[in-house]
């Protein structure tokens, strides 16, 4: 059931977007290729960030220092996910690097990779957004904005763990 819905969403959205484009007389083929050009730029432009963060995390894991982190997880957050939890609110490209590293070391079909995927897909770079947006208009006192952002992050991390457990772990994946 859940798998069927998940599998249907993407093709449905693509058909919907294409149909909307045709109805609005958008030259869909030209606009598609125009947008697709950016795919190369975006993918290549993240290489420096990926190198930095994947190197640092791989070294950290190879040294055995990752064992240290297991003391800070309070038994709720799986230790393999902790580096992701730390980098996600700070930097989008760093989190992508950590996520790619998780996918590569545990396998793309592992529970850990799926949990990480849900986590990355459902959160934002909280601290980055706050500093850029408030900085742009010169706000110095952010009042409860930071607290709201942190609460939002904690909620989405806990929800991701709960939902992944129910949907992926229950099936014995």
């Amino acid at each position, binding site marked *: 059931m*859940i798998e069927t819905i*998940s599998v249907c969403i*993407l093709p449905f959205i*693509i058909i919907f977007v294409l149909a909307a*484009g045709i109805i609005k007389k*958008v030259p869909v083929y030209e*606009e598609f290729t*125009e*947008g*697709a*050009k*950016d*795919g190369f730029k*975006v993918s290549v432009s993240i*290489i420096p960030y*990926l190198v*930095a*963060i*994947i*190197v640092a*995390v*791989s*070294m950290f*894991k*190879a*040294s055995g220092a990752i064992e*240290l982190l297991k003391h800070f997880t309070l038994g709720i957050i799986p230790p393999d996910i902790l580096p992701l939890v730390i980098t996600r609110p*700070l930097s989008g490209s*760093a989190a*992508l*690097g950590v*996520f790619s590293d998780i*996918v590569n070391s545990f*396998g*793309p*079909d592992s529970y850990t*990779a*799926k949990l990480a*995927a*849900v986590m*990355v897909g*459902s959160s*934002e770079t909280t601290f980055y957004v706050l500093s*850029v947006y408030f900085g*742009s*208009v*010169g*706000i110095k*006192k*952010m*009042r*409860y904005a930071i607290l*709201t*952002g942190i*609460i*939002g992050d904690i909620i*989405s991390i806990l*929800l991701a763990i709960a*939902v992944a457990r129910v949907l*992926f772990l229950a099936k014995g994946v």
Partner: protein
Amino acid sequence: MNYIFFILIVLSVVFGILNNTLNEVTNSMLSACNLAVKISFSLIGIMAFWLGIMRIAEKSGLVKYLSKLLELPAKLLFKDIKQDSPAIGSIAMSISANALGLTNAATPIGLRVMQELQEENTKKDVATDSMCMFLGMNTAGFQIIPATVIAVLAGAGAKNPTEIILPTLIVTTLSFVLTILAALLLKMIWRKYD
């Protein structure tokens, strides 16, 4: 990020010496560089496809259409700004662009929202309730299709990379709603301190 990067590498070397794993540390450093490039190249195709589709969405005015739907709820949440303020429309537009994953389009719209909210602000260096609410919605990161995540999974050879769509949608929707509630609650608590 500077400190995290620095600490990760220093700790790795220190622990490499202590655990006698320095050789593994060096080797993993070298192979990780290659891995990073491989990952980025495996993303190109899917990212190109998705950005192409999203370009059509942008050109056919889907962002505008979606933001029309969001204007009414936005009016209810942002009661302290003038009801005819252009900020309401911009807020709806920004959330819509984010929901479609149009990050490049969303940032300039978001910055415009901040300017419009700042115009109604009486204390120019203190955030208003509307700003806190808007950024709360923004940092909750509501997104319909997590394209990059799917691209990474597909690039690594996942059997069924799109199966994370529904779970992600459930989590992102719930956390979006709960974050808004948290912002409303904090607004009432903060009143007592201001």
